């Protein structure tokens, strides 16, 4: 269990922390490998122009998978845009994600958003948006609603170090404190907000320490250690369901890749720093543990990577073959029902489309 941020009002007792069941570990590792494989593949696909954009998660797999593993499937996730590991643990099929990355007719979102901005009501994984932080206060409202409806769930919201500066971080954590909302604020401090390092984002000693301002506990965990993350989240979940309110968890990780495929991190950070964190690669760490315990052999591992790669390639091939979205869906879902104005625009659009004046 990570150390409680100094100064937290009620640090949870570490001895109470439940452990990640040993039987689960191979599954946890598999989820992390799948995330890594998809990441590598998508970076390539973007370079090849087969998807338009991508936001990698490399370096953050243990934090994401460890957190998601500690939750109940009924808990609601309010992600940022980097939470592939969480989506995979939730069970979102790879093909469905890739449909979103392409924006084809298989995409539950109907091709409306950039890659990575997916969401699946079925998996209680709320559709992501780009403006940072907005999900935070929403997660608090949802938690209040769940409690009001008597449902024993928590909401978990994900955001980065940079997002602690956002309006919604402040509003959301303050509301959560006041209303004792059953919410877990899971901050992945990956040390960078695009080109701004953590130390220049805020002068607070840790990000977890910001919880002091809202009167609830903040804890720091090593986000490359899946066990530590799991325990911290379980603790926070227990607290929330016991009516003791929210917890802020700062998982210290590192973004090994670029911010997105539009970014070139060599402009603002050093190879030495990168190498330091590459040495703490969460996948290597868990693999080592599994090899040591005998739960995994090198041969198993090689096979795992190979099958996973094949599966992802196959899923992408299938996604690429899926038909494009129907252009007329452009006018759906603005409202539950199209207004007369939208109906008229749709007709105008359909006519232009027919005449070939609009090419989707």
């Amino acid at each position, binding site marked *: 269990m990570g150390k409680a941020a100094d100064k937290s009002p009620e640090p949870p007792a570490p001895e109470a922390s439940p452990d990640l069941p040993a039987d689960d570990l191979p599954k946890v590792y598999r989820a992390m490998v799948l995330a890594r494989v998809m990441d590598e593949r998508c970076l390539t696909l973007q370079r090849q122009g087969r998807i338009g954009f991508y936001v990698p998660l490399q370096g953050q797999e243990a934090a994401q998978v460890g957190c998601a593993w500690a939750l109940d499937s009924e808990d609601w996730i309010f992600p940022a845009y980097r939470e592939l590991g969480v989506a995979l643990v939730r069970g979102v099929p790879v093909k469905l994600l890739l449909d979103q990355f392409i924006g084809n007719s298989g995409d539950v979102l109907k091709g409306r958003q950039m890659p990575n901005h997916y969401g699946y009501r079925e998996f209680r994984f709320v559709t992501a948006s780009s403006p940072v932080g907005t999900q935070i206060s929403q997660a*608090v409202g*949802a938690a209040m609603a769940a409690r*009001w409806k008597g449902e024993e769930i928590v909401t978990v919201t994900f955001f980065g170090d940079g997002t602690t500066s956002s*309006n919604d971080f402040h*509003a959301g954590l303050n509301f959560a404190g006041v209303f004792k909302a059953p919410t877990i604020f899971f901050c992945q401090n990956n040390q960078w907000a695009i080109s701004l390092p953590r130390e220049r984002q805020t002068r607070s000693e840790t990000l977890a320490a910001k919880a002091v301002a809202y009167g609830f506990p903040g804890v720091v965990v090593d986000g490359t250690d899946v066990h530590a993350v799991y325990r911290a989240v379980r603790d926070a979940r227990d607290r929330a369901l016991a009516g003791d309110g929210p917890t802020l968890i700062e998982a210290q990780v590192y973004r090994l890749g670029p911010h997105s495929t539009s970014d070139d991190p060599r402009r603002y950070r050093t190879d030495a720093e990168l190498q330091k964190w590459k040495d703490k690669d969460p996948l290597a760490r868990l693999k080592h543990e599994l090899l040591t315990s005998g739960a995994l052999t090198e041969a198993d591992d090689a096979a795992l990577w190979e099958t996973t790669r094949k599966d992802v390639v196959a899923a992408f091939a299938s996604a690429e073959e899926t038909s494009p979205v129907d252009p007329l869906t452009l006018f759906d879902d603005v409202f*539950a029902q199209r207004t007369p*104005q939208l109906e008229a625009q749709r007709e105008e659009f359909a006519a232009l489309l027919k005449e070939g004046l609009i090419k989707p």
Partner: protein
Amino acid sequence: MTELTIVQAINRGLADAMRADPDVLVLGEDVGVNGGVFRATEGLFKEFGGDRVIDTPLSETGIVGAAIGMALYGLKPVAEIQFLDFIYPAFDQIVSELAKFRYRSGGQYPCHVVIRSPYGGGIKGGLYHSQSSEAYFAHTAGLKVVIPSTPADAKGLLATAIADPDPVLFLEPKRIYRAVSGEVPDGDQRVPFGEARIAREGADLTIFAYGAMIPPSVQAAETLAASGTNAEVVDLRTLVPLDEKAVLASVEKTGRAVIVHEAPRFCGFGAELAAILAEKAFFSLKAPIQRVTGYDTPFPYALENAYLPNAERIVHAAKAVVAAG
């Protein structure tokens, strides 16, 4: 039928909705114990308790963000923004999230949220207790924008707003919160969205208005009648969805339009009405369209009465339009 003021009608409407549906709740600054700074939520805290009539911290960002979260989870929150002038800290949540959630999620996550807020001038509130910024929201795809001008419409449109599965910005003309009172049907009588109300019939000219601009528009029409011009007054009631049919039908009949609103003229809602007429009623128009609006300045304090459109200015513009063709 009961005789109510607009603010009483809203209060009644909220109570009725909360009684009928346990998923409806109210949140905002000072809405609970205090009953709202305009008393629109008076009595609700007592009847429904602090879990359903929630006094929030001073953060519009938080109010709208939390309301969205509640709606995603299946509740039907009615958020109050104390004055429309104070909605801007929530603008990101409204424009980026509330308006787009259904769309961007492919229909998975509708936002069943009503935001109520008193708007407009006439109470000597200066720059920050007088604004009429409906155009920002009407331009935001995914939001409905409603502005009642009578107690019956206030109650009937509020009922529709609370039942609507989409986000609705419900703007209340605070200047006539108590000035206007009228008969309000009892029970769950809804006024549908997208249907303008003909506040006064006429054949020579149409005055388009909404909210607190209805009384001076009707007054202007009466003055005009005395000099032989028979003006129709169309109360739009819902800016989004707009009753374009009624707008066009009126001008097809009268051939002349004066558009009235409190907001600054430039890029105000009146511009859209004029644009629709210039596109779709062009051949019916006999004369230039005139707009009688607030000026393109911030809202003043001492000169409030000089700033706000009044019946005299509307009459003046109407006469100019009639004279022009």
